[in-house]
């Protein structure tokens, strides 16, 4: 069953400030990177795609076999930029507990499979309070995966993660992209080149680029995604 994420003229206002404005795109396979400078609206867009932030205008829908529905828990797994775990829980218990909360039929089996998917099966008995930043991120992804969602939304998954763990994380994200739609934001350019098939760049809540990471680098003319994130909005503004 193929699923398409349809973002149609979606917008979100906080008071008088517009965080995301009239943004549209569709995504139907692999990992889509969401890039932009601070305050560009990445987290707001991802929150709306995950169904945890309501949109002020437009719509986000998941279309599977010509049936459209709103994003909701179970169909969308979401790992926010900042989250805390009850430190007392073992990694395996936290994931199994998440599965039980979601009503997954066999929480232990689902947890075991999710931990395997994020390569944490060897440290499943580690308390979350003792897990590194990278492990905690992957544990969060495992918790989001236990319900086998159609879409996985990851808000800056590599934030605060060391280089070695970042590589593992990218590998996990690539593997997930082969099984479901993945939306991922980041401040680190290599995350996009290593894991994403395509990339969108936001500037002040508006979509200013959509294409492959290689296209972004070329269009930015500066040799890296980070510089492209700075240059493409300028170029876009001048063109407008």
């Amino acid at each position: 069953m193929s699923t398409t994420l349809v973002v149609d003229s979606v917008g979100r206002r906080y008071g008088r400030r517009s965080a995301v404005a009239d943004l549209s795109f569709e995504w139907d396979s692999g990992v889509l990177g969401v890039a932009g400078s601070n305050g560009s609206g990445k987290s707001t867009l991802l929150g709306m795609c995950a169904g945890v932030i309501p949109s002020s205008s437009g719509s986000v829908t998941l279309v599977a076999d010509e049936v459209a529905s709103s994003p909701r828990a179970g169909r969308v797994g979401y790992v926010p930029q900042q989250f805390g775990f009850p430190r007392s829980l073992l990694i395996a218990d936290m994931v199994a507990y998440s599965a039980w909360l979601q009503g997954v039929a066999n929480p232990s089996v689902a947890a075991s499979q999710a931990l395997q998917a994020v390569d944490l099966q060897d440290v499943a008995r580690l308390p979350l309070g003792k897990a590194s930043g990278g492990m905690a991120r992957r544990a969060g992804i495992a918790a989001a995966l236990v319900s086998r969602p159609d879409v996985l939304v990851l808000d800056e998954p590599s934030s605060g993660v060391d280089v070695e763990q970042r590589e593992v994380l990218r590998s996990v994200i690539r593997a997930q992209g082969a099984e479901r739609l993945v939306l991922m934001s980041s401040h680190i350019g290599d995350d996009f080149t290593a894991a994403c098939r395509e990339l969108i760049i936001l500037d002040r809540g508006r979509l200013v680029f959509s294409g492959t990471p290689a296209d972004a680098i070329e269009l930015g003319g500066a040799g890296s995604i980070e510089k492209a994130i700075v240059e493409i909005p300028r170029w876009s503004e001048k063109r407008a």
Partner: protein
Amino acid sequence: MVGEAGVRHLVRSTFTLSFGIPFALFVLLDGFVLVTDLRWVGELGWTVDWANAGLFVSASLLAGLVAFVSNPFFASGFRQVAQADSGIARVRLFASVWLRNLVLGLAGHAVVVGVALAITASTGPTDAILPLAFVYALLPIVIFVTLGTLASAYAPSPLVSVLVVGLAYLLSYNAASAGLQLPLVVGGEEAGMVGLEFSTSSALVWAGVAFAITGILFVAGLLVALARRSSIAAGVTVLACLVAFAGPTLAGLHLPSRVETTGRPLALVCAGSAPRVCVARGHTRQLTRIAGRVDEATVPFRQAGVDFTGVSLEEQGDSYVPGKGILDLSSSDLDLGDFAGRDYVQALTKPRDCAALWGDRIGNGAGDGRSATSSTRLLDLADALTDWGYARLSPAGRTEPNSHHDDAWAHLAYTALAHCSVSSSLAATIKK
């Protein structure tokens, strides 16, 4: 509601440091309050109820602790990752966290009660545990655990946890000092409980009120879990607290007394003779000392020719036993380790076989001038004889209103009290 993984999580996370520290804190405070007042030692039947004294303070702390340990579960980050941000998942989240917190409270208090029972059982023969005491021990724990969990579900922050401690203490304090009809402060009675037992019907009423309050708070927690707007959650929380805590008081609810007299003779242990001294089994550890002090108190009476052969002084239950002297042992005196000397003398002078004074006639004698006069004379004479005996006991020659009487008067007075009959001429000798 709490299935396989929920139970596993519950059990495993109970034995971890971040849960163990609040658990230990609660046990320490709960136990500390108990050891500041040791009158429960030796009274197995009432130890469980006395152990509730600690809950006056510790249950308030418990409310804040459960809010604190619940905060990571209700924080938005975890709810989003675990996809427990709406619907049945949040209901499960609230129910499972509440259940785990209840384990914290009940297990913590059980540790304290268990240690207290072990201590009291080691002091010697005692009466049996009263099972209904456990029902009363549960009530404030269940209520405050639910309050703390509700507060965390509404606003999972350390500040709210601290505020919950204050709110819970205020509720406990008000319930205790203003006599509010809330089962928040139960047990830890000041008075001796010998001769009393719990009323089953009262326990059901108290438990019913407690579970109604808990039910309101629990349903509020579920509604907060399901609420999409924080203003709705706030409204539900405030309304639930008002209905649960102010409602019973505003409605003028009057809870029945938790205890009633047993109507059965006390199980006693005795020592000595002339007089024979008997105390309730729970006070066995005090018997030798009390019998010794009674024996000292008899010295002036013996010198006046009073014979205590066949006289028996028994710890006072809650019913009059004809022919038995009354040994009025208050638990606070027992706790202090001794009584005032006058109390022992008074135990000897109280009219023993005197239904006119202790029995039915005093209750039915309203308007009966002769009965009232007779009772007054008996009591006045007993007081006068106590004055006399206590003055003789004091080495420095204490001055009491009736200490000037001679031994012959004392003998005459004692005989009159023993026969429950005071003549006018004897009554005239009493100085008030």
